[in-house]
């Protein structure tokens, strides 16, 4: 039986992955947050990923696979702490993976590393430059991590390294995009813009994690559930209405509201409502045998499964 380490296990995605794996693997969790409701056979270490004690885990258990989900995306966290946690933490993890004979390193990056841009082709493949940080500094951390992990392809060819770049993950999660679709009955959009979007269902993403673990291939893979639709269609599918905002004016207003902590939607994310940032998943289909089982509309349905109060006061 394989032993897997899941970082960021206290997050919703980490929990779901752990529940999917614990019957066929020994699952070890690592997170500095407290964790609730997990199957009893999962061993959880409540530790900051940067602490030296993390090495003890590698000494104690023979870890075969690392699922690195523990990337901090908290936009409210101080920049320095955010950067330090992500970069130092991941560097250490990579070091342990090499020193303790781990055979697989699976990293959850994001399709947002390409960034929404006016000049984007409709479907971006894995070779596109990672331009997501151009306007959105918080994505720069993720891009740095993505590149750090991809350096393993030549630094540690014996280690199977997989980078997954899913598009917006929507479902029972507390992430920006899921919360965006949960905003009251009127969803803010930018007047005159209606970009095409892709979404990914959590189950499709979990499936990709498992496929990556079962395969022997290193690589970078874009992921999305099937189908792409314009933002306006997604909003009307949810039975909601669009609230058109005029870009430069509301961007400035949101900038001040965000800084005053009145909204949880950083103004840089406006670009996602303006330009396309869609991915080509041919590579994942071919190399990992990834076939999305859910459509973009199934993904939106999974959002409605849980009741949620409005997070952004609009």
């Amino acid at each position, binding site marked *: 039986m394989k032993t897997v380490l899941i970082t960021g296990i206290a997050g919703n995605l980490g929990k779901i992955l752990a529940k999917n794996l614990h019957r066929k693997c020994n699952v070890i969790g690592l997170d500095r947050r407290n964790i609730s409701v997990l199957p009893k056979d999962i061993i959880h270490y409540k530790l900051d990923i940067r602490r030296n004690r993390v090495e003890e885990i590698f000494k104690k258990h023979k870890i075969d696979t690392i699922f690195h989900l523990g990337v901090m995306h908290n936009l409210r966290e101080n920049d320095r702490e955010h950067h330090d946690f992500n970069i130092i933490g991941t560097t250490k993890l990579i070091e342990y993976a090499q020193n303790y004979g781990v055979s697989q390193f699976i990293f959850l990056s994001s399709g947002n590393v390409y960034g929404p841009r*006016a*000049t*984007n*082709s*409709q*479907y971006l493949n894995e070779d596109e430059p990672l331009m997501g940080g151009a306007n959105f500094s918080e994505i720069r951390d993720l891009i740095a991590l993505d590149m750090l992990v991809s350096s393993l392809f030549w630094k540690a060819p014996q280690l199977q390294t997989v980078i997954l770049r899913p598009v917006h993950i929507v479902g029972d999660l507390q992430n920006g995009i899921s919360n965006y679709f949960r905003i009251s009955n009127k969803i803010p959009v930018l007047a005159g*813009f*209606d970009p095409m979007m892709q979404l990914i269902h959590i189950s499709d993403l979990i499936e990709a994690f498992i496929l990556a673990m079962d395969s022997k291939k290193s690589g970078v893979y874009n992921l999305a559930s099937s189908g792409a*639709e*314009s933002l306006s269609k997604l909003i009307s599918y949810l039975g909601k209405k669009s609230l058109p905002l005029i870009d430069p004016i509301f961007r400035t207003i949101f900038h001040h509201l965000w800084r005053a902590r009145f909204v949880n939607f950083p103004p840089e994310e406006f670009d996602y409502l303006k330009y396309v940032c869609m991915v080509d998943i041919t590579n994942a289909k071919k190399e990992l045998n990834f076939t999305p089982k859910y459509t973009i509309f199934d993904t939106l349905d999974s959002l409605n499964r849980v009741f949620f109060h409005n997070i952004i006061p609009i």
Partner: protein
Amino acid sequence: MINSFIKKNREILAKATEKNGKNFSDSFGMDLDYLAKIITFIEPFYRYYFRVSTFGIENIPKDGNFLFISNHSGQIPIDGVMVGLSLLFDKEPPLLLRSMVERWVPELPFISTLFSKGGQILGTQKNAKKLLEERNSLLIFPEGVKGISKIFKDRYKLAEFGSGFVRLSIETKTPIVPVAVIGAEEQIPTFANIKNIANWLKIPAMPIPLTPIPLPVKYRIYFGEPFICSDNTEESANKVKNIIQKMVDDGINKREHIFW
């Protein structure tokens, strides 16, 4: 009344996309209902203002997808719209033509939405390749801005051709159909293109037009026979350019008047 026109155009679009299956869904976000409305709005211009005549449309085989390569002129890209409409209205079965827009278009509110729902896509090699691989037909103007912003004295002299379309055609095994548009050159005569101002305003061209609105010139669109380029060189692009230049020259010789 208008609804019946929209319905008629929606049926033409349905016929044009029949081969893609019943529940046609476009991976680039084209919306056929929306497109039918746009077409209904511009149809009177096609029929009664520019009075488009097509020649050689029978050269295009019934099935398959093609890369249409055309001369480009007239300051604003009405020529592209007219070629697209002629393939919907005059060809049997109708053919839905896609075309590509400049890189700054997605930054424009409303226009970006109008174009993307109307089936126009951003002009990148990857987009063009994907579109052709999905068996769509595509219109390309290899002259680009140099062609459309020609001043009056240079009319019907084709500008230099980019060679990207040859590679595209070979890679996706799509036959090229040469197209010559006659009439568009005279729609907005211009006597100068002030490049300094264009550079300063960061726009592709700054023509000085002699008319505020396009003149009601008669459009004549000639379709040549489809062919496949054997090798990916600039020479192939030049060959295509020469074919189109000859079609343009022949068309002008046959034309008796600019306006009718």
